[in-house]
């Protein structure tokens, strides 16, 4: 079995709302896979179908080699889930919830449990009702990470954590990755995605619009260049891969060129610039922000 999760053509409608529209997703074993998309794009719905909480209208879903609807109970012993909206039992303490969830999954690593409680600075004796939102999330995170499972499904797990706890969370997930665990991480925190994920799928309106490694995706965006040249370079305005070109010439002096260049053709453009006498060059690599925002905003489906 090479893919921990394999989804082909998944569709799901709620009444007249089409939540998932022929969605494809593959998560290889041992990788940390980012699952991104604007609010309401179908990320949580996909996760619920994976967990057998919702049935698919159409499409094939394979989870750890099994059918998530039929074999839910056996498959769930091999995975741990952190929901986006953690709801704890008000009269149980955090420690009791962690132990209960661990027992349902077939066991907790007690040392890891104690270690995680300490690193996340979580008090396990407080009752569920008295936890703040971030601490409720920590309870769910500790419950999932202290269990001995092969797959982690995390739905915006760190959205309520403070920056210090966010960095603790990233360290911990990196450790899980080193242990060979597969992780499906749905998140809005781009720095987290950048730091942790091997591959990323971007969902919009129930359909995956882009999937691949971050390096591949960076390739598809633009680098912004600021160059100071001896003379104006020829033919830049005609190039399709050069955007928002601004050429400023000071009388009798150097020419400043600012542009956004498709990263694919960066090399060619630099050759053109160098030919015009390069004095200084500043290059800004594509930010993830731009990458995702381009996909998040209205782009027509192919």
């Amino acid at each position, binding site marked *: 079995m090479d893919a921990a999760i394999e989804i082909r053509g998944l569709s799901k409608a709620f009444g007249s709302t089409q939540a998932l529209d022929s969605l494809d997703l593959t998560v290889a074993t041992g990788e940390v896979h980012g699952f991104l998309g604007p609010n309401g794009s179908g990320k949580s719905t996909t996760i619920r179908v994976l967990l057998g909480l919702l049935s698919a209208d159409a499409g094939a879903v394979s989870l750890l080699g099994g059918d998530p609807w039929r074999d839910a109970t056996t498959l769930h012993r091999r995975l741990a889930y952190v*929901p986006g909206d953690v709801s*704890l039992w008000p009269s149980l303490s955090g420690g*009791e919830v962690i*132990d209960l*969830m661990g*027992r349902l999954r*077939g066991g907790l690593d007690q040392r890891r449990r104690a270690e995680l409680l300490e690193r996340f600075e979580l008090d396990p004796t*407080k009752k569920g009702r*008295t936890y703040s939102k971030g601490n409720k999330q920590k309870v769910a995170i500790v419950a999932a990470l202290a269990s001995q499972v092969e797959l982690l499904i995390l739905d915006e797990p760190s959205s309520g954590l403070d920056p210090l706890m966010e960095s603790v969370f990233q360290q911990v997930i990196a450790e899980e990755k080193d242990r060979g665990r597969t992780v499906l991480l749905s998140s809005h925190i781009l720095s987290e995605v950048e730091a942790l994920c091997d591959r990323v799928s971007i969902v919009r309106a129930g359909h995956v619009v882009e999937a691949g490694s971050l390096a591949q995706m960076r390739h598809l965006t633009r680098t912004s260049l600021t160059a100071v040249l001896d003379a104006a370079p020829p033919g830049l305005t005609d190039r399709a891969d050069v955007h928002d070109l601004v050429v400023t010439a000071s009388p009798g002096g150097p020419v400043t060129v600012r542009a956004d260049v498709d990263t694919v053709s960066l090399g060619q453009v630099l050759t053109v610039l160098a030919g015009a006498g390069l004095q200084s060059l500043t290059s800004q690599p594509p930010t993830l922000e731009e990458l995702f925002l381009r996909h998040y905003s209205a782009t027509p489906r192919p």
Partner: protein
Amino acid sequence: MTGPSALTGTGPLFRLALRLDRVRIVAWIAAVVLLVASSYLAYDTVFPDAAATAELTASFSSNTAFTLLLGQVHDLATPGGFTAWRSMGLSSIAVSLMAIFTVVRHTRAEEDSGRAELVASGVVGRHAALAAAVLLAVAGCLTAAVAVAASLIASSAQAGAVRGADVAGALALGAAIGATGVVFAGVAAVTAQLGSFSRTASALAGALLGATYVLRGWGAATSGMEWVEWLSPFGWGEQVLPYLENRWVLLALPVAATVVLLAVAGRLLARRDLGFGIVGQRPGRATAGPRLAGASALSWRLSRGALAGWLSAFVLLGALYGSVTSSIAGVFKDNPALAKILQQGGGSTDDLTLAFVGMIFTILALVATLNGVQRVLHGRTEEIEGRAEPLLAASVSRPAWLSSHGLAGLVSSTVVYAAGALAFGVVTAVTTDTAPLSWVLIAGLLELPAIWVLVGLCVALLGAAPRFLAAVWVVVGATFVLTLFGPVLGLPDAVLDLSAFNNVPDYLTQGLHVLPLGILTAIAAALVVAGFVGIRRRDLDQH
């Protein structure tokens, strides 16, 4: 904060609460009006002539179970008197429940959900939410009072010309019912300040309602204890004696009680933090006990407090009602005229005692059903609030999850009923010798299939069609009315049989008929199976 600024914002909050609850309140009031008006309109059918009136008056006056439930018979010679006796108890309970739920929903429950926090950050005084909730509850009670009075006046117009006495009686009955509701709005205002969750507030207020109702009935049925009725708001309503004497001045009692309760609630509110009760939170365990390892264990853990409460209440109730059994024979020593009429009708005190025993078992079973229904409905709440998701996403199977709420409801209602029935049976057998203990206990057991049918219906809905679960309360309410009032109102058998409890054979007077019990059990089993089939197919709902 004191003075007018503490109540800033009450107006908008009241309008909001009204908007959210108007359908619910109208439904409650409609049910109450239906109950009251149907009693009035059925009078001529039940009491066609003077002889029937005399006989039935004798029969009802000597029926201790009715006295426990409905209070003493004062006057059955007029439709108004009969209606007041028959329907005031249940209507007052309904209006009081409406008041309790309204107050708790717009105070404690809002705090639990976090919406109160959002509101309190606006220009809103500390007491505004409570004031708005109480205002709404009181408005609902007053509307109920007016609606009841209007329906009774209309009913009397149907029978002939409306006399002044009819109008006065109708207004008095409406006012008595409404006033009782207002008292419990006050009770709920206080309980909403105690305890940590809205469920505690409702449970406490509901328990007080049950306790004062039982107290009224017990006082009425136990000779020498009639003064106890004055301790209960239901007793105050009864003593107004609508249609008979219309003692308006007694309405000062519920009004005064409400004022005191609201003052207490206000003081408590001023001293507590938003979202917390006066009773503080204790820290929990750092690790879970060894038995907290599955959905059923979790469900048991979450409900054990409530179960303990129900069990103790039922044991007390059973024992209390059992202590009344021995006084049934004494009714005739005090009233030889009654005895004569009954003997003419072919009855004897032994028959009366057995009939009483049968009725009490039915009443205990009806109330125990509420426990089961509540347990299963709790499962739906867990699902809606997102606490089923983590369990089902772990290794809890869907049938196991349904069973942790559904089967738990069946077991819980059975155990609660058994405790009450046992207490009642033992006390009865010890204090009277009309029937041996074993017979009495068997009679008690036979009610169980009827409980299982209603709780089984909840399991079926939770598993297959949870959106319709709220409608179960309509079925429960109809069952209560059909069982307790149906036979007297002379409804046709086909309608009466819609209540599962009307199908339970009366073992002590008629012997054992296995077929109806078998059918009831089969229906219950089929409903449970339907629930387990449905749970495998449906999507999990959220929020």
